[in-house]
């Protein structure tokens, strides 16, 4: 059985090795924050991080996670729900139904890992998740706000 490092904890995975990471997270590890929306890597509701990069877990077989790689889900993004993206999301009241939001937040956090001061164009290409409630405008504002919050926090400590 494969070992997986999820949110900082090593776990032994029992699921069939070709099972998509999404279903291992949800059904074996009980991490239901990561959502199923399409199963074909279109909607992004299943977005998690592998070594800080956004991955669509619904089409990512669990055996494709390499030894030593770190899987982060929405539950592990921050200890107290206070990652800059989460802070910005709370401040701007971004979610509506909330189902796509773990994916949106993980995609946004990954974008900020890559581009700490993203432009609108960076957001357009970096976040392609679907939200049917239509939170997109606030998602854009949220990403910019999160960049500010992260910059300010960095400024204080440096």
């Amino acid at each position: 059985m494969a070992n997986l490092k999820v949110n900082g904890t090593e776990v032994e995975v029992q699921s069939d090795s070709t099972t998509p990471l999404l279903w291992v997270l949800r059904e074996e590890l009980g991490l239901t924050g990561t959502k199923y929306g399409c199963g074909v890597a279109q909607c992004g509701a299943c977005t998690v991080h592998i070594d800080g990069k956004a991955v669509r877990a619904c089409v990512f077989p669990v055996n494709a996670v390499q030894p030593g790689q770190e899987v982060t889900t929405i539950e592990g993004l921050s200890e107290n729900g206070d990652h800059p993206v989460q802070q910005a999301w709370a401040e701007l009241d971004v979610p509506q139904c909330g189902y796509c939001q773990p994916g949106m937040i993980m995609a946004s956090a990954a974008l900020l890992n890559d581009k700490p001061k993203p432009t609108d164009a960076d957001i357009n290409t970096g976040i392609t998740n679907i939200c049917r409630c239509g939170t997109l405008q606030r998602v854009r504002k949220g990403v910019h706000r999160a960049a500010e919050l992260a910059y300010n926090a960095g400024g204080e400590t440096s």
Partner: protein
Amino acid sequence: MTNKLLDLSRRKFVIGSATGSAGLSLGFGLATRNSHAAHHADGAKTEVDAWVLIAPDDTVTIRIVRSEMGQGTLTGLAQMVADELDADWSKVTTEQPTPGQNVARDRVWGSFSTGGSQGIRASQQYVREGGATARALLIEAAANEWGVPASECTASESVITHKPSGRKTTYGKVAAKAAALPPPMDVKLKDPKDWKLIGAPVKRIDTTHDKITGKQIFGADVQLDGMLNAAVKACPVNGGKLVSYDQSKVSNMPGVRAVVKVDDTAVAVVAETWWQAKTALDALPITWDKGEHAKASSSEYEAIIDAGLTADEAFVGNEAGDAEKALAGASKTVEAVYGYPFQNHAPMEPMNATAVWTEDKCEVWCPTQNGEAALGACIAASGLDAANCDVHKINLGGGFGRRGNSDYVEQVVAIAKQLPGTPIKLLWSREEDMLHGMYHPYTKARVVGGLDDDGKLVGMHLRISGQSIIAGLFPQALRGGGDQLQFQGLNAPGQEHPISYTIPNLKVDHAMRNSHLRPGFWRGVNVNQNCVYMECFMDELAHAAGRDALEFREELMKDNQKALAVLKAAADGAGWGTKTKPGSGRGLAVFSAFGSFVAACAEVTVSNGELEIDRIVAATDPGYAVNPQQIEAQVEGSFVYGLSAMLYSECTFENGEIQETNFHNYQSLRLAKMPEVETIVMPSGGFWGGVGEPTISVAAPAVLNAIFNATGKRIRQLPIDGIDLSA
């Protein structure tokens, strides 16, 4: 049902875990959890009246029965109760009674149905009375304790003050005594000028924390002890049947526990995990009888709709003067045909429900827009008495009208009934969701308008042809064979969904042409296409008359000042009348929908045939605006839904089967195409309008009119993606 299971279902869901922190338990009662308010000990709350419970620590629990699916109704309803209650908002939390409890208490909470943008407007009176009644009881209890007249006491922020003496107490301290008092015969509601929470742009009370940390439990996340997972396939052609399946091919696959016939049309695989169930279902050989619609195609159906556009017989929805005569005598006539295809709701969370069935009880946990209808489905499918059935509503991962139907509840109960005592969670794949929707019907419209020598509109005939939702869902509600709901936004003045304009000679009629697909209420329902038909045509008329599109409309809106006000606000906000940059153009649309007045002005740029929607200014007059920032969120979201339909989405069928199976061929608007939306909330007071749906109507026509303004090209058939805009 065992006590253990009952106890589990009532108190918590257990999330099984192999991470070492095994048996992680989430406290999750019937009540909606939210972390907005301090948690309080269960059982310590006192029910002051049906809507308000108060704990000794002054936590106020407000009961909400309309479903929260993202539209913010939970927060808005709580604001209304809390305002009349004069409660401390920071200590307000909510819970959702079950439909079974509603039945047991003689429907004390009224309708659970959540659709038609009615959450606020249809329940505002009795929920405000619920808050006001509790307030009166609490004050009376305090006054009794002090031996003073209640009229000398006031309440604010959950604190009661005896004005002459300055004595104070809190709601929590007198709640038990208040609950024992007889309720007042009538209570006076606040004058709107005294509202503190109604009208305040407070944050949603269901967002903080759970929705941004992944902790919010949706139906798809429900986990019960000993639960198995089911994946289902119904006959891909609506009206067809399940003939046979060969379970021997999959029964040895990992985790598979059962293969069951759900009903005449569907088969399900039950397994330890959903992924195992789905994998086995995909491998299951199934024979279908595709039935009488096995050859049905969209092109064939479209020809039927086209014929309806000029058919002799049609049901008249709105008529004034003599349109035929006026058109015959007009100095200039304009004619156009528009089309708005089938749409799927496609909420992000696919259909799902969880059920436990035993010989003497059936319980369901599900996201639903209509708890009582879900309960009805549970009763019917379980074969048990109503008193032994109940439904626990779970917050919805989107609804948009789809979850007003309970087909997935019937399915899960039918499966659970074959595995007595075992909790079954049924989750549809996205493909199942796309193939078995309750579709926004396909309609087309042929509109003919007549202008006189001065460019004034003298007559109009707007003929709609296509499928009726009411004929599919509630045929008993048809009147004289006609569907009056078809005319939303085109009705005579004074009705719900009135027409925006006074047109001297007008005929609006509908030739019903139904397909084999199941129709449904899709966010916005019939205002979506009717606004395209009316507002794009208004633009065509203004152009033919050589007049400004705003001024042309204004002349016809003298009797409809509220609609005109939102139209002007949107136009002014977008700089209507000022010059646009080369390649750009602006377009307008206005509509009356779900009790509100909405308008939009879109600005687009077309360069090298590529459409860029630069900016949209949208105005809404909902009468009273309970939460302006949530109205803004609904308006912003309405453009995503409405523009997705305009740009990309269309459900078609070949050999009776829907061809669009997932988001790769049923696209939805993404950030790259999301325009900047500026929302003007302009409540004029005196009425209660809805906000979840109205603005969808103006999204497409405002943009289509802007495209014409920019390019001179009329687009009359949705979706528009792939149409060459450069020519």
